[in-house]
């Protein structure tokens, strides 16, 4: 479906969040341009182009696309949200779950080097499962512990994957 076809479709509810996307694109474009402006462009015979033109092109294109999208949205274009096996397309977006998941993930980032993968990874799984609606608190904990211990022994010790032991160094 082209933009034009979307525009002639029956008037759907306009999605104002799309303008937020335009803003994000324009902002990214400006950041890319500002960063490019800071580069010194001492072009040489070996490199007559220098590092500057490509970011200038990309940044400029982002701003142009942001404007183009704003125009398209004003004319009724709407992104088709992605479908999938476990997605209920008619449900309203549940941002509380998403934010809680991000919170659990940030906790993992903060804790991983300190507590080690076994504890922080286990907490990541446990917390995510509960946030996603699991109510088997004991079973979830057992699975989380089994997963994080299993991956640590299997991958970190078995295959040499770089996972931190943290405070359990020497115990595991």
């Amino acid at each position: 479906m082209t933009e034009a076809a979307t525009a002639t479709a029956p008037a759907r509810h306009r999605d104002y969040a799309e303008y937020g996307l335009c803003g994000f694109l324009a902002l990214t474009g400006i950041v890319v341009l500002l960063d490019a402006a800071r580069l010194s462009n001492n072009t040489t015979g070996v490199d007559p182009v220098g590092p500057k033109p490509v970011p200038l092109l990309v940044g400029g294109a982002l701003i142009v696309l942001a404007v183009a999208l704003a125009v398209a949205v004003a004319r009724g274009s709407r992104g088709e949200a992605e479908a999938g096996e476990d997605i209920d397309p008619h449900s309203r977006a549940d941002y509380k779950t998403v934010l809680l998941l991000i919170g659990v993930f940030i906790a993992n980032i903060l804790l991983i080097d300190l507590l080690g993968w076994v504890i922080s990874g286990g907490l990541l799984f446990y917390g995510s499962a509960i946030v996603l609606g699991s109510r088997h608190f004991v079973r979830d904990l057992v699975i989380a512990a089994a997963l994080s211990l299993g991956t640590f022994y299997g991958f970190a010790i078995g295959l040499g994957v770089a996972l931190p032991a943290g405070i359990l160094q020497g115990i595991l």
Partner: protein
Amino acid sequence: MDNLELLLQGFATAATPVNLLLALIGVIVGTAVGVLPGIGPAMTVALLLPILGGLEPTSALIMLAGIFYGGMYGGSTTSILLNTPGESSSVVTAIEGNQMARGGRAAQALATAALGSFIAGTIGTALLVFFAPLVTQFAISLGAPEYFAIMLLAFIAVTAVFGASRLRGFISLMLGLTIGLVGLDSVSGQARLTFGIPQLSDGIDVVVVAVGIFALGEALWVAAHLRRRAVEVIPVGRPWMGREDFKRSWKPWLRGTAYGFPFGAVPAGGAEIPTFLSYITEKRLTKHPEEFGKGAIEGVAGPEAANNASAAGTMVPMLSLGLPTNATAAVMLAALVSYGIQPGPLLLQREGELVWALIASLFIGNTLLLILNLPLAPLWAKLLRIPRPYLYAGILFFASMGAYAVNGSSFDLILLLVMGVLGFVMRRFGLPVLPLIIAVILGPRIELQGRRALQLSSGELKGLFGSVNVSTGQFQLSPIAVTVYLIILIVLAWPLLFALIRKALPAKAQEALEVVHEERVHPQHADDVSVEPPADPEAREKSRQ
């Protein structure tokens, strides 16, 4: 033949007991992960990639080949047994496959998919053996201007051909290029978009981008829209098919293969178009038109073969030009790079042993898959019942483990989260994922080739169209580069050309085009279109408005 000898050497490398065991593990893990709903082949490879970090390159690639085919097969199992497909490439398989399963013929649907995948994969890999060295020979003669043009074509094709909206495709492409810019410029050594953060000077690892966009983004997106009721899984016994099924399947398998491989091998191809073409062809040729829409075996056999043959086809540009044409190939290319292997036309010369071992293990993985999947199908079907909180918590868990393992640094987890949120936003606004991932991988390389081409012309723009002939000292247009630019123009102007062609065609052909277009856009309704009497095109036209 020289290729055969090299392939046999590849088999010798791949068939050692340890490597066979790795291929087996790869196939099992790949299928298991691929069967899980919400996880397609690209995400399977991305999630399992960092785990392979400890293995030596040859063994890792052999396991990866198993994961690749396993993930593909797992995905089609999901689309047959669940009523909604996850990947665009298995949308068509799901149309008839799910209907067959509902009608109590799940075993036959899985069997024809497994055999079709095996046959298409084997023929496709054999064609790869033949074409990869041929394309490599051609590729070695290419210079920077030609490379620049070909990569530009890959960008434009992937953006303009796939997905619902070109505008959104280009947005995705530019976001990918922005991510690719981060880090030290490879020529001048100046830092771009690093904001003074030392960890960013090496750039953002492609594996972190892939895991973030595919895995974390998907998990967050599903979390926002999770079905609260249990999905319906159709029970299945051991797959088998009778003589009649076989008679109806073998021609669609071969036709599907013939559609899939060439489409996979060209930058604009992918699996979407050949699977649709195969479906339409089978619908036209079948002796059982009344079954289409209600579970016709030809409608599973053909598209499934096309899907696998296209996957084999994507290996041709990936191995000979370093050009990924679909998401899975892009992630596999990232795997090569993470082993310090430089993709491109010299790959087959420099890393011949490795590449031939990879190709040999594609044959091995494909065979293992057939042996394993027929008896294991009931077990895979059980995996579909995994409680969703565990599934998506598990994706977060493994994504986090993988991203940490890339550099052993928690900074990558921050990047992973940023990429995950970006992946969420892209799914929310219908921005296609593929252009972004291809741009991240090819972005730095296209810049390098472009700058190299302009270096040869001392900065004049004509350097992108040709180069100075060494013997005569005269500037010469490169016929290859010019041809590729022409193709780009045609691809860009296609909607306009399509409209013109449609006007020029007689009414009957117009109608056929309409149907094809309709089936591509709304495959679920494909059956209503053909059931309606063709004598009344006006009413249909109206109903579509």
